[in-house]
């Protein structure tokens, strides 16, 4: 009997234990198991590759390469002589954030810098996870199936590393999804640079040659021309990127830096030209009308190379730059919202020749200045419906509080065509955001030629002729000015100023910081919180 009791008892315990452990397992219904999400090739492509493109644009602060605030774009724009966010009484002081950017007083705990770092590295780690999943998938599947996926993710990751390296210099190089703390160590900037070049060069052959800016299978994706553009950018900035100590005043010489390109050894400037030629050969050209690139329906542009696809009904990406620049009544006249912020600096006005008979044709296309009209052509009035809204470009200053022009100082962002059907105060619109375009290719090529001791007039003047401006000689000085005009509001200014060595110099409303002349502010600090949490990281010199 006792045996039977014991047996019954044991059976009872077993049943209880088994049912308990099953009872304590969760069965998710509103989310999917990872195994299912990457099971087939098309699953892998969708969730392992296309999923990553959700991080190119964004709708929250510091997320996305462009379109949102306090992220990559703002760090590249409001730190330069291209744009500022004047404090306007109660508006735009924001704890000194914007003034801090302009004056290069951003500090090591700047939340926007920290959030930008997190955004970029998060995307890199997600790319790493995708590569690991593709790797796992490739074990049982033919290489030719997975190679294009692998190449696309590697190229995408390289692009994010390019932004990380450009902003932060000497950073950790993470190539897996679950790095050990001891792997979080900084690599020399030149090493990160070579890694990016290698990754892009190796993945290019597996990528499609299709246009990425036009709807189709490769819309918004990494294709070969996008990679060439990046390689040209990398080569153009090679003197900066290959410089492991940017505070010693010595840069490597672009003529002696060697790029292995399609079996040839080229110096930096030759490499730029090589990649630019490839893009030209692929059929990219200037649009006759400059504004066509920024139209509501700019998908058919022959000039745009890489864009963030925008659709107010289909995608979540936002574009807040028009919203935050336009005066309230200006935006209201379009049926949209405005925050009355971002303005052009005095350098912009001078460079464009604003107020002179020789004003560059692109000024009126890129900026609102003086009186403004609504879509029906009527003058826009202020709240009292008596005084017209008149922007006063020359009154721009870091703080215009209490001035009669507090709300109207500064020329505002125009550039992108007004989409009157835009949603969310005008932040959700249909104009694709232009990241890379062919005019930049020409300007890069012109600059590379000049730097290599050749004549770059043809490329420069191709860009100028398109907007009906008289020809100029391609000198470095003219090129820097041309880039400010042609690429206004496109997020290139910080990189350009650093390459031309003027980022740390004085410009309007800004005197250099003490000690800045050594160039320490040409990279942002590693966020202090990241340094604290990763004891092997070292803060950059000067911070």
């Amino acid at each position, binding site marked *: 009997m006792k045996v039977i009791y014991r047996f019954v008892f044991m059976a009872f315990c077993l049943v209880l234990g088994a049912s308990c452990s099953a009872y304590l397992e*969760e069965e998710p219904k509103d989310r999917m198991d990872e195994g299912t999400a990457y099971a087939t090739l098309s699953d892998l492509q969708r969730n392992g590759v296309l999923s990553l493109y959700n991080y190119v644009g964004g709708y929250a602060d510091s997320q996305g390469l462009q379109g949102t605030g306090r992220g990559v774009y703002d760090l590249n724009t409001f730190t330069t002589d291209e744009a500022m966010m004047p404090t306007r009484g109660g508006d735009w002081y924001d704890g*000194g954030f914007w003034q801090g950017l302009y004056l290069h007083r951003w500090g090591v705990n700047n939340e926007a810098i920290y959030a930008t*770092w997190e955004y970029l590295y998060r995307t890199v780690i997600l790319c790493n996870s995708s590569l690991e999943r593709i790797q796992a998938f490739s074990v049982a599947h033919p290489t030719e199936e997975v190679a294009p996926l692998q190449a696309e993710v590697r190229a995408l990751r390289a692009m994010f590393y390019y932004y990380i390296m450009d902003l932060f210099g000497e950073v950790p190089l993470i190539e897996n999804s679950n790095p050990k703390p001891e792997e*979080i160590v900084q690599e020399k900037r030149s090493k990160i640079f070579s890694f990016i070049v290698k990754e892009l060069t190796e993945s290019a052959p597996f990528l499609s040659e299709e246009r990425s800016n036009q709807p189709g299978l490769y819309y918004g994706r990494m294709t070969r021309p996008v990679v060439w553009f990046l390689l040209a950018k990398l080569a153009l900035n090679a003197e900066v990127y290959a410089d492991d100590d940017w505070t010693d005043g010595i840069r490597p010489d672009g003529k002696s830096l060697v790029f292995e390109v399609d079996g040839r050894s080229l110096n930096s400037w030759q490499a730029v030209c090589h990649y630019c030629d490839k893009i030209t050969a692929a059929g990219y050209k200037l649009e006759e009308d400059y504004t066509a690139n920024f139209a509501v329906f700019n998908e058919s542009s022959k000039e745009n190379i890489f864009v963030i696809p925008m659709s*107010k009904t289909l*995608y979540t990406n936002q574009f807040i730059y028009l919203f935050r620049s336009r005066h309230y*009544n200006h935006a209201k006249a379009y049926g949209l919202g405005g925050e009355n912020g971002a303005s052009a600096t005095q350098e912009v006005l001078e460079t464009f020749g604003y107020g002179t008979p020789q004003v560059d044709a692109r000024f009126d296309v890129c900026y609102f200045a003086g009186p403004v009209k609504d879509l029906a052509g009527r003058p826009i009035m202020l709240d*009292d419906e008596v005084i017209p809204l008149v922007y006063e470009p020359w009154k721009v200053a870091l703080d215009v509080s209490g001035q009669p022009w507090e709300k109207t100082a500064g020329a505002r962002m125009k550039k992108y065509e007004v989409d009157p059907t835009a949603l*969310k*105060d005008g932040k959700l619109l249909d104009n694709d955001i232009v990241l890379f375009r062919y005019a930049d290719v020409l300007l890069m090529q012109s600059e590379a030629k000049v730097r290599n001791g050749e004549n770059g007039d043809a490329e420069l003047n191709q860009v100028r002729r398109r907007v009906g401006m008289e020809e100029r000689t391609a000198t470095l000085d003219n090129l820097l000015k041309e880039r400010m005009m042609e690429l206004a509001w496109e997020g290139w200014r910080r990189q350009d100023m650093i390459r031309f060595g003027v980022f740390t110099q004085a410009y309007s409303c800004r005197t250099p910081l003490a000690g800045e002349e050594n160039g320490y502010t040409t990279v942002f600090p590693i966020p202090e919180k990241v340094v604290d949490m990763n004891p092997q990281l070292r803060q950059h010199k000067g911070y």
Partner: protein
Amino acid sequence: MNEMQPVFRAFCRMLFWGCLGGVSLQAQAQNESELPPDSIYTIGYARGILKNISGSVEQITEKQMNRELITNPLEAIQGRVSGLTILKSNNGMAALESVRLRGTTSLTSGNDPLIIVDGVLGDLTMLASVYPTDIESFTILKDASETAQYGSRGASGVINIVTKKGRAGKTRVNYNGSFGVSYAYRRLNMLSGTEYRRLAAERGWSILDKGYDTDFQKTIEQTGLQQNHNIAFYGGGDASNYRVSLGFQNREGVIQHEGMKLFTANMNMSQKMLDGLIDCELGLFGSMKRDRTLFDLQKTFYSAAAFNPTFPDFPNPATGGWNQITTASQITNPLAWMDVDNREETSYFSAHARLTFHLLKDLKLVLFGSYTYSTMENAQFLPTTVWGNGQAYRGSRKGEAMLGNAMLTYQKRLGTHFLDVLALGEVEKDRFQGFYTTTTGFSSNELGYHSLQAGALRPWEGTGSYYEEPHLVSFLGRVNYTYNDRYVLTANLRTDASSKFGRKHKWGVFPSVSAAWNVTQERFMRCFRWIDNLKLRAGYGLAGNQGGIDSYTTMALVRPNGVAPVGNSPVVTYESLKNLNPNLKWEVKSTFNAGVDMAFYGNRILLSVNYYRSKTRDMLYQYDVSVPPFAYNKLLANLGSMRNSGTELSIGLTPLRTKDMELNINANVTFQRNKLLSLSGMYEGEHISAAQYTALAGLNGAGLHGGYNNIVYQIVGQPLGVFYLPHCEGLVSDGNGGYTYQIADLNGGGVNLEDGEDRYVAGQATPKTLLGSNISFRYKRFDVSLQINGAFGHKIYNGTALTYMNMNSLPDYNVLSEAPAQNIRDLTATDYWLENGDYVNFDYLTVGWNIPLRKQRFLHGARLALTVNNLGTISGYSGLTPLINSTLVDGTFGVDDKRTYPLSRTYIVSLSLNF
């Protein structure tokens, strides 16, 4: 001290002579008839008599509850229980924002105590379904030795509510009703239209002058009427009894459209079956609550205070719409904002049954099962006048909880030995699911949220749904042993298993032990006849916590992360969206507590002192982690530890007690301390640490986006929630007649406002001392009761003043009327506006009259009372009120930032009748 002694002696003498006897065992002075010395206490699952209890158990019966002006049941014990903090949502609606017993001990949201109504386990939302006058008693368990019975769910204390049951005897009917009026009596003193106009003329500003003089703060107010009714029928015989009650509350807030309607029903029935072998109890309670509340308090009150006062308080006759000021982009016409419709409907239903089998004389088997179903529906409409394109939102959330337990109890007295043993097994299954949709692009505001099709677009991120089904399994063993009524020992062992944790960490074991010594029972105590009760207690126990964490953190899962274009069609893609932590486990809190209960002079002086010290380990929290190595910057993990300690002192005095008169003074004081010990620990074999400074609360508004506007922080080595601010040395001239804050260079090398630079810890947001006091006086049939609460030792950041004193915000945003004189032109957050938060608040005053009834045939009792609520506050704080959120760790913690309601007062007449 010497001068004090005669006074003290006189006081004692007075007490002594006033002594006429009476029995009470709690620190709340009370009437003997209400609480016989051996009254039965419900201590979690166990039931016992006071002398067999070895932990701190406070029971509050109807007699001691706050009677008037109660919306939520817990208000009935506010100020009556030491260590209990209740944060009401300040609109006077039924919802409670948070409740803390002995402070915040966890960083996750599992800080609210477990609420039990007649054995049904629930959370704060369940409270709204119980009508306050249906409550018979509250039992509050704070010591780990007692809360350990509930394992993981009891970690933050337990509030056990028992509703009234039917009684054998005649059938009875009770009615309670009240009618009240509330109105706002004080608001911010902003520039009036005339002053605003004069100032603009003086300073030469061009302003938008519409020619009126409107106090928009007043225009959005209303007089709130309220009525409450509750009727209960009860009765029964020897074998069965029943009680049914119905309740209705209708309240209007002091701001336009604010209101709440609540309907409750409660039914209890019990029956003896099979010759007393089985006791059967059945209970049902349900409620339906409809709220219309303000959407975005800050936007509402910021707009009301700062909107241009020269604008009219009526819509533009030409357009029929409200005039807006486009340059004041962070606010809106407050009257237009009143058109925002924000509603919530909560319904709650709970059924439970308990079968008690009297197997042997001392052995009982209790089977209990409950099912609870709740839904919450939200609807919101933001018209095109205040929100570009308009926006409508509808959401529905549903929760179900099924709980069943089986319990065996054995109680035996053998001579001087008393043994009480309990064994319990319990399973719980919850199910939470819901969905929501947002639409925008409205061509008309007519239909609001009633027609979602009226919006042209449904943005992808505006729609969602979820499903969770966590399970819990528990076993409990409890032994309570008493020797000779003097020495009490209690031991609990509870194990819990939760489906939310990692495979190897599901089970948690939480033991506890406590002991007590009834000193009064000792022979040597006979010499001290004036001591009625002296009991020493001590205990130690562990408790687990899993509150507030989501399901599925331990599993590798993916969710939709967005829409990517493929060809011309949008395709939804999937991504993990959060860091995975397969090793998630229980958070464990260990508590030591000791206490002494004393009663002197015929229970005319009652004193109870409790000390506790707890340490929370493996603290569950969304830690800020570094990217890289992690992909996302938050990780739900068990790192870090926190310490809480405190002393609770309760005093009950009855200095006067005669046939006609009685004076009772009750006070409880709580001294609480909290320290965040660490935010680092081991994760997957690696030591990781979270960020040193984590901002918890900051400022918002025009010119306050981002930047250095964080005010309250979580810093290791400090109490949870400290003000970490730059130091202002005073105001300095800006050279143009204005003044700015002079910021001290604390660490040398120039002023830098970043974390870790020129900032210092300037105080804490949580009070160090809490006071609750009730003074009641009865003369014949009249009684008066005054409730006083207080909090000390904390600070408040006056972000409202920082914003409204900044002259730079004129003329777009109005300022305080004293701002022009000070002429500050600066919006930098420094300690200049950090103020002392100490206050004493006179919560309410009630005057009651028990109506004499001479031999009425039907009516047995009647009472009429008048209550004035929110009498006033004594405080040095310069803002509207120091009664802001100083409890709940969220974005408003310790910061008064343009979202405070106007001060309001409520007058209530109430009537209760017993038939």
